[in-house]
């Protein structure tokens, strides 16, 4: 093993962490700050990924797209499309309280996944879209990874600063007020429904952007990428483990979970050769066990929500 390889692996992990951190940030807006239980992350991730893919990939017979637009336009398109899909869903579903919203959103995400898997004219069905251009993809292996990492980090930092500013602004206080005591906020004259919808759409747009970053990095997007396990539940684990309600916690959670996810395979590869296949099952067991341990000893997350007044107490009581 060489140093260069390690650097390349670290770069790859950092890019993936950045992409997942965006998802976790989006979810943090919805759950951590507005208390919306969105279990359909994969749906918005998919809409973003496919929108950008359609906008920026070369033309293929029998499928819409082939606009070959600049990737920036693709990414903006991804955010807009995810927001557009989120709007009616939010409009209809946000009236459900937490667990019902979870079930409704997971259902919608599954329906989106089935449509993507089954409509050749829209998404090339099960085969997915490939030949998506990767920004700075013509450089050498490491240079291109560094360039992409810089882009991902720039997007992530921009999103982080934006979100953080919003949360410390009156808007953030209002959102927390709505989350912690809807009736009181309502009585104060806040438009609860509208504010919730705002948070839902904003978070979903970030998820869409993350999907676009993912598709361009891999130069392809296929329906397997939007499996609920890797695109929804994994993000939830990241947020809860990192600390919901805390943006830095969301990013840290993404990093820790992805590192556990990825490095655990290197660890289980130390098992004897005959167990090479079994080692992969044991790896999943270890990931599950790790999760138990962190939840057991840091149930409020690695970086808990900063105390603002005495809200902490109310929060743990009010979570459904």
């Amino acid at each position, binding site marked *: 093993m060489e140093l260069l390889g390690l650097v390349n692996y670290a770069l790859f992990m950092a890019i993936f962490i950045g992409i997942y951190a965006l998802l976790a940030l989006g979810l943090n807006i919805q*759950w951590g700050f507005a208390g919306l*239980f969105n279990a359909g992350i994969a749906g918005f991730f998919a809409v973003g990924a496919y929108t950008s893919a359609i906008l920026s990939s070369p033309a293929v017979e029998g499928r819409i797209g082939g606009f070959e637009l600049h990737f920036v336009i693709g990414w903006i398109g991804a955010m807009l499309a995810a927001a557009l899909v989120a709007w009616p869903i939010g409009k*209809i*579903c946000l009236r*459900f*309280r*937490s*667990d*019902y919203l*979870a*079930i*409704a959103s*997971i*259902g*919608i995400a*599954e*329906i989106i996944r*089935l449509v993507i*898997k*089954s409509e050749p004219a829209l998404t090339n069905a099960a085969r997915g879209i490939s030949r998506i251009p990767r920004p700075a993809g013509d450089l050498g292996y490491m240079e291109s990874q560094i360039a992409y990492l810089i882009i991902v980090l720039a997007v992530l930092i921009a999103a982080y600063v934006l979100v953080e500013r919003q949360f410390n602004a009156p808007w953030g206080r209002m959102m927390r007020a709505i989350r912690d005591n809807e009736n009181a906020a309502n009585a104060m004259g806040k438009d609860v429904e509208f504010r919730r919808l705002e948070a839902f759409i904003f978070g979903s747009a970030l998820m869409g952007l993350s999907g676009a970053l993912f598709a361009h990095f891999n130069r392809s997007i296929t329906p397997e990428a939007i499996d609920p396990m890797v695109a929804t*539940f994994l993000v*939830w*684990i990241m947020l*809860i*483990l990192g600390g*919901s309600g805390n943006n830095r916690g969301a990013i840290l959670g993404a990093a820790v979970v992805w590192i556990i996810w990825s490095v655990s395979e290197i660890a289980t590869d130390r098992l004897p050769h005959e167990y090479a296949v*079994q080692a992969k*099952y*044991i*790896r*999943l*067991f270890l*990931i*599950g*066990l*790790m*999760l*138990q341990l962190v*939840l*057991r000893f840091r*149930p*409020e997350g690695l970086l808990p929500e900063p105390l603002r007044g005495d809200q902490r107490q109310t*929060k*743990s009581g009010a*979570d*459904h």
Partner: protein
Amino acid sequence: MDFLDLINFYVVPGIVLGSIYAFGAVGITLIFAILRYAHLAHGDLATLGAFIALAVVTSLGFSPLIALPIAIIATAAVAVGIDKVFYNHLRERPKIVTVMASLGIALMVRAVVQVVWGVDTQTYSRGIVRPEDYFGIRIRDRELYTIFAMVILVGGLQLFLTRSKWGKAMRAMSDNPNLALLSGIDNKKVVMLTWIIAGGLCAASGFFLGYNTELKSMMGWHMLLPMFAAAILGGVGRVEGAVLGGLIVGVAEELSVLVLPSEYKAAMAFAILLFMLLVRPTGLLKGKVL
């Protein structure tokens, strides 16, 4: 299409499938109502139950139907154990923490199944079983057993919940935990009972899925979402609602092929669910609003 075809090829399979969903949905609805979280390891626990029954069949040579009670007891014990070791410590925390923990348990249980039993597709007995003809209705004996078992187990559970002391305690915990605790109900016992029931029903669900088709290490995970849809559809906390929900989801999935392209079969459960949540958020039978 004549009426008998409709019954034989759409309704009967739907009811069988629905019965299998119902076993799981009843457990989910009880956990939802009494412990107040979504238990995501339910599908994989069902897989475990099915494979425990397989172990009994292959190692002791029992017939599958005798293996079932053993699997139910074993899986119930596993469920209680998981609760004691993992979930119990998180009781006072926000419920979302337990939901995440159950996701981790799902991975762990599946890994155990894959390491112990491997990943090959297996069956309780080789060969195929052709259906019998009852006045034009064609049904296999194992499908009848599935439906009977569902009726008996769920009927028994319903009797237990309404007649026995502990059943009443469970319902009280579900309706108003604070009041129940004040009136001296032993929380620990109620939690344990819930897990015994949910775990046992999980095993039944997995067993009958395997009995009617095959055993695969991912079989339970694939059933998880329809089972949740069934539980919510029926109304949270309502055992008979979960059964009704399971049957509706099962039959609707099978009937959907008549009107939708078959690749959208899996979407049917969710379409019904979304519609239900819009028009009647408490579920078919008036359940809890969480």
